[in-house]
């Protein structure tokens, strides 16, 4: 039961941290719960579908279907996180100013919630399909009784959700007029970490060269298998032994999204013209 709980927890953790950050990044925005819960629900349904066709996906495109699928899901999430940040860099200041002025938690600003809804949906899709495959395998093998497995899975899910709630509640303690600056950084690191993970899948599919299998090795300090290592991996793409191409994708994402945030005209300037 404990083994089941731990495996489910690790898979849920990454998606739960993403949901926690997304909820904080959209704090005060109307109808955000509809979009976020809708995204999670769609992701879970999609995960079941993906798990059902796992054999077909794995065999597709000469056996690299699973890698292409994971990479595509990750890069789509990177694009949505980037779009959110660019939008916030143009409107975030007004939202913060409005929050200060009206002193309320509900903002009239219409954040592009579909971007964040997609981000949580994609996270639930990727991690969820692995949970479904894992639990299905355990259930079919019959090694554990179904009830014990269900309890283990529920415990793992609860622990993962608790981690997501913890980061959300932690971010809530930041005043609303400064919150969006913090969540923009978190979203930027999240995007860079996902791009680096996506690059690893492209190497695995033999589509891009690794540019050095191990650029450095910090596994003695912090392994990715440990809980802190997994949290850092989910939050900012921590990898104990990064391949060169992962660093390239990481930096390109940081610099690319950062440049768009910095150099795209801010809305106020456009209005003045």
């Amino acid at each position: 039961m404990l083994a089941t709980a731990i495996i489910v927890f690790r898979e849920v953790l990454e998606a739960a941290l993403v949901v926690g950050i997304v909820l904080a990044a959209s704090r005060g925005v109307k109808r955000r719960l509809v979009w976020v819960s809708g995204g999670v629900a769609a992701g879970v349904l999609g995960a079941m579908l993906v798990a059902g066709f796992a054999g077909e996906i794995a065999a597709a495109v000469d056996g690299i279907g699973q890698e292409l699928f994971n990479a595509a899901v990750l890069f789509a999430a990177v694009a949505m996180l980037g779009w959110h940040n660019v939008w916030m860099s143009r409107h975030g200041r007004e939202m913060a100013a409005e929050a200060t002025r009206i002193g309320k938690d509900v903002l009239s600003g219409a954040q592009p919630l579909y971007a964040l809804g997609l981000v949580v949906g994609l996270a639930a899709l990727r991690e969820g399909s692995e949970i479904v495959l894992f639990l299905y395998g355990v259930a079919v093998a019959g090694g554990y009784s179904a009830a014990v497995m269900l309890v283990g899975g529920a415990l793992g899910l609860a622990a993962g959700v608790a981690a997501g709630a913890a980061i959300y509640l932690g971010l809530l303690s930041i005043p609303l007029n400064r919150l969006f600056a913090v969540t923009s950084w978190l979203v930027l690191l999240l995007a860079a970490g996902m791009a680096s993970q996506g690059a690893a899948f492209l190497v695995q599919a033999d589509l891009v060269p690794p540019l050095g299998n191990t650029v450095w090795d910090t596994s003695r300090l912090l392994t990715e298998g440990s809980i802190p290592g997994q949290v850092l991996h989910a939050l900012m793409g921590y990898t104990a032994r990064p391949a060169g191409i992962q660093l390239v994708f990481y930096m390109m994402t940081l610099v690319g999204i950062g440049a768009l945030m910095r150099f795209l005209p801010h809305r106020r300037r456009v209005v003045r013209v």
Partner: protein
Amino acid sequence: MVRHTLLPVLLLLALASPALADDPVIAIKNHQFVPAELEIAAGAKVKLIVRNDDPTTSEFESTELHREKVVQSGGQISVFIGPLDPGRYEFFDDFHPETRGHLVVK
């Protein structure tokens, strides 16, 4: 594309020694990797086949090699590995972490 450059090499190997032409296979059986230790040549790129003979789902993973791929019960997957420096690289089943094996690169 790389497969195309690999193909003539594999064909040559096939002519020289039929056994070498086959991609190396690791089976997962009773939550053990069979073989638990696989040897490949340094600097070579191989297409490793991982076959799951157990009734449970597995995820072939290696943090040292940056590989992770789900292998369904009764199914098999292929992973490209290498070229690697000589050494010992660990891989495991992420869904059954006690199931471990090594790739020995010489």
